[in-house]
C-alpha cells in the first residue's frame, strides 16, 4: 500500500471526525502545516536538503505527485537560496488553498468522504468525515509510540511529531497531564529535524498575528 504523505497525514489528524472540518484550533496554521509537510516529504524522498541556514534542491526529478511536484518546481525555480521558515511561509500563502487541495486528494484516494451538510436549516457546508478512520488511528499510534518509547525515532515519525506539535494536534490528542508528562520527549524529538523546528517558528508567528488581530478587535 502506498503510504500517505506527511501533508496528507497532518490533514487527517487536524480533521474533527464529527464535524468533518479542520478543528478550529488548527485552522489558522493548516496551510502552514501542509506546506511544511510537503517540504518534509520532499526531504525524505531525497529531492531537497536543508541546513541551519538554507533549504536547497538536490534532485529535480519529478515524483508523479502533483502537489509535491508543483512545490519542487517552485523551490527549484527560486534563484536565491532561502531558509526553511521562509519557504514554509511563502508556500503556505502562494499555493492557493492547500487545505482544499489535500482534502481533495484524500477524497480521491478513498480515505475521506465529501458530504454537503446543512446548518441553521438553510446554509450548506462541505464536510470531510473519514471513511474508516484507519489512517488517523495509525498516525496517532505512531506518535504515541515515539512519545512513550525511549527508542531512537524514525525520521518520518520525527517529522510528523513536529507537525503535530506545531499545529496543536498533539495537545488535542493527549490528556493535559499526559501532554505535560511527555513535554520533554516532545521537545527532544521535535528539535531533531530542521524543518520541524522551522514549522514551529512559522506557526508561532501565525498564532501571534491572529492573537494581535483579536486583541485589536476585542480589547
Amino acid at each position, binding site marked *: 500500500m502506498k503510504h500517505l504523505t506527511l501533508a496528507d497525514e497532518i490533514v487527517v489528524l487536524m480533521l474533527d471526525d464529527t464535524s468533518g472540518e479542520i478543528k478550529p484550533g488548527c485552522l489558522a496554521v493548516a496551510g502552514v502545516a501542509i506546506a511544511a509537510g510537503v517540504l518534509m516529504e520532499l526531504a525524505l524522498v531525497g529531492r531537497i536538503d536543508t*541546513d541551519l541556514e538554507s533549504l536547497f534542491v*538536490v534532485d529535480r526529478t519529478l515524483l508523479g505527485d502533483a502537489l509535491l511536484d508543483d512545490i519542487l518546481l517552485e523551490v527549484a525555480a527560486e534563484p536565491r537560496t532561502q531558509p526553511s521558515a521562509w519557504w514554509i511561509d511563502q508556500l503556505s500563502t502562494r499555493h492557493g488553498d492547500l487545505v482544499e487541495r489535500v482534502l481533495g486528494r484524500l477524497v480521491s484516494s478513498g480515505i475521506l468522504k465529501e458530504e454537503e451538510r446543512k446548518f441553521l436549516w438553510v446554509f450548506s457546508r462541505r464536510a470531510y468525515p473519514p471513511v474508516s478512520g484507519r489512517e488517523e488511528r495509525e498516525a496517532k499510534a505512531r506518535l504515541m509510540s515515539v512519545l512513550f518509547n525511549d527508542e531512537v525515532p524514525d525520521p518520518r515519525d520525527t517529522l510528523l511529531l513536529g507537525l503535530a506539535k506545531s499545529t496543536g494536534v498533539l495537545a488535542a490528542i493527549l490528556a493535559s497531564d499526559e501532554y505535560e508528562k511527555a513535554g520533554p520527549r516532545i521537545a527532544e524529538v521535535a528539535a531533531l*529535524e530542521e*524543518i520541524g523546528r522551522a514549522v514551529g517558528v512559522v506557526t508561532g508567528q501565525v498564532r501571534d498575528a491572529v492573537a494581535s488581530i483579536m486583541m485589536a478587535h476585542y480589547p
Partner: protein
Amino acid sequence: MEITSKIDGAVVVFQLAGRIDAATSPSVEGAVNTAVGGGSKRVIFDMSAVSYVSSAGLRVILLAAKKANAAGGGMAVFGLQAGVQEVFSVSGFGRIVPITANEAEARTKLAG
C-alpha cells in the same frame, strides 16, 4: 566523502571524511547496514574529518543509531568539528546519540 572502517568484534569504527549530505548519506547508510548486518552492533563514527552535516546527514546518523540499537548494540560519535558540533547542538542530537571525546570513551560508553 571517504568512508573507511575497522571492525573489532562487535564494534565497528567508521572514519568519515568530507560532507555528510543528501548525496553522500546513502553510502554511509549502506556501510552501516552492512556492518550491523554482519554482527557489528556497536557503531562508532569518527567525525574528525567531517566538515559539514546537512539534515539528510543527521537523518542517516539517526537511522544508524536506530539500526544499532535494534540489533542490541548502540552508537556513539566523536571528533566533531565546530560547525558540525553546532548542528548537533541546535538539533539536540547529543541526547539521542552520545557524543564522546575520543574513540576510547566511545568504546567504554557502548560497552557499558
